[in-house]
């Protein structure tokens, strides 16, 4: 038994190492001045990378902030629409239900680059190219498979029983939704929201093509720097990119834990 267990422990340790090492290496890259081959460590510790990110290139910081807002908005819309759709799929039976449910998987089947190239001319015709509206439509569309399914699974698991109980005790359906169902769905809602945020924040092609250089997100900004070759600058920018993705996620996870704690303590 112990032998088998140690194999599994080894696998876990290996996996964790494979995941963490690249992140650490990139952070080290970001903090060196030059890293000529074949030195194992950079020449010296230096803040040149971060100087470039925060001081020299003022607009990069502005782009970061506006990206965060854009992704928040996209996540919000994706979560709301996802919730409404999840409610429809799990609580009702109606013609075309199966097809529409399959439809929620379409953004996974049709790649974002295909979508962007196919809709580009129409966006121009409708006047929403180079605009945040167009970008949001694209981002929300590609978050939907995740929000619909995350929220759908827990909505179905939750079921109708609590709502029905409450309504039998006298409250109307809106009160039942707001005071009973919604609080219980909060962990799932936040999980869907943070997933949607990450997907929107990482979107490149849609923003690149449909944004036309007018709508700038951090992903589009960082992209050309990755293969250009200056490791320090690329490392600094991607570190900021990674941290800002993770930060929001961790923030929301903390909020879930807090709310769950409150619910539990309120019930005891």
């Amino acid at each position: 038994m112990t032998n088998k267990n140690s194999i599994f422990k080894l696998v876990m340790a290996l996996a964790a190492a494979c995941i963490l090492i690249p992140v650490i290496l990139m952070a080290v890259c970001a903090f060196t001045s030059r890293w000529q081959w074949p030195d194992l460590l950079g020449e010296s510790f230096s803040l040149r990378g971060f100087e470039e990110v925060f001081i020299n290139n003022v607009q990069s910081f502005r782009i970061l902030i506006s990206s965060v807002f854009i992704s928040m908005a996209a996540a919000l819309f994706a979560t709301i629409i996802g919730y409404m759709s999840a409610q429809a799929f799990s609580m009702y039976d109606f013609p075309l239900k199966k097809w529409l449910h399959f439809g929620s998987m379409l953004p996974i089947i049709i790649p974002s680059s295909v979508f962007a190239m196919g809709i580009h001319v129409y966006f121009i015709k409708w006047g929403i190219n180079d605009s945040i509206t167009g970008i949001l439509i694209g981002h929300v569309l590609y978050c939907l498979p995740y929000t619909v399914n995350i929220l759908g699974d827990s909505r179905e698991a939750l079921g109708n029983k609590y709502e029905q109980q409450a309504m039998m005790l006298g409250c109307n359906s809106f009160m039942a939704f707001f005071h009973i169902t919604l609080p219980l769905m909060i962990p799932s809602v936040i999980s869907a929201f943070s997933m949607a945020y990450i997907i929107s924040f990482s979107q490149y092609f849609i923003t690149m093509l449909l944004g036309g250089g007018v709508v700038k997100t951090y992903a589009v900004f960082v992209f050309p720097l990755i293969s250009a070759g200056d490791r320090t600058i690329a490392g600094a920018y991607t570190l900021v990119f990674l941290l800002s993705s993770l930060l929001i996620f961790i923030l929301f996870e903390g909020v879930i834990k807090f709310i769950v704690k409150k619910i539990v303590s309120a019930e005891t």
Partner: protein
Amino acid sequence: MKRKKIGFMLCIVLCVMMVVSVSCSNNSDPQQNNDAPVEETYLSEMNFDKIEEKAKGTKVTFYGWGGDEYRNNWLNTDMANALKEKYDITLEVVPMDIDQILNKLSGEKQAGSTSGSIDVIWINGENFFTAKENSLLYGPFLDKLPSYEKYIDTEDPETNFDFGYPVEGYEAPYGKAQIVFMGDSAKTSETPAGAEEFLEYVKKYKGKVTYPALPDFTGSAFVRNVIYEICGYEQFMDMEADKETVRKEVMPAMEYLKSLNPYLWNEGKTFPASSTEQENMFSDGELYFNLSYSPYSVATRIEDGVYPDTVRTYLFDKGTIGNTSYMGIAYNSPNKEGAMVVIDYLMSAEGQAGQFDKLKALPVVDNNKLSPEEKEMFEKIDTGKGTLTQEELLSKRLPEMPANLVPIIEEIWLEEVVGK
């Protein structure tokens, strides 16, 4: 219970605020579709003073290749500040590959958009050809700009023809360029002066030499230069743009490039995706060979410590390709007046001196038209280390081939050379 309710309300308010702030942010510009056609006829009658007045307080976007950090910084700081001070114009530089720019414009043209987001375009060669043929540019505007008569040699063929194609006032000269090759004399003492010597060079420094993958602008120029070396250049000047005709003519050069492959970086199976990548590999020491359209760019990089000061540039004896790059105006530019003011300034002695000083880019101004003070502006600028004199560059300068042949050659290279 009440606290939870308040918490919810706060969250919703926060989210609504975020959405509102996002939609009101100055990332996207409202599109005015109404006044455009009327404005255009009015514009063609305005004199430059009126144009300058109209452009005051407006924003002008400048779309162009963003792979040169030095140029981006110069445009974003020196140029932007000068334009703000002199004309109260806010310059917004948007780095974007010319393919994407033209793609965007042609999509907008297809959809019938009359007001877009691009004002000034940095453009030349086969891209200008495509843009003009497809009516993606506004013009003619060149003769409206005071700097044109004042500083530019109006008879110069490079002013009137871009890769052999008539300009007809649809673009204004921005900077002159010429291909130079470079190497670190501390690592490689040789400077191959022709095709044979170059072959010996790649054999000696196996795996350390390559060129950017076509259709990168610089990579494409290298291939055209090799074609000139091996096949000569006069026959291309009026050649039909037919793929098989061109293929027959350039085959000897393709064979030569194939013969280089086994000794190139990655054995010619893959090439650096862009000139920026190649430049970084060169400064890292991964490659011993680099080439650039900016003959004096070496000086700026040596100054910054990006290249060691033993780097120097050289040419082939038979010459290297030189051209001019230009600025055009998008057909649906929302601020044509502002665009013209920006272009006029960049073409003036002051703008060109600034470009020469910070980027060491060859100026387009006609020396004979400069006043003594203006001449001094240029003379006191030191071209820096590692560079060749202007005389030497001009004595070995070859013209570009017709624009419509360039994409054909790029296709042929992809078919005949990569990985073969």
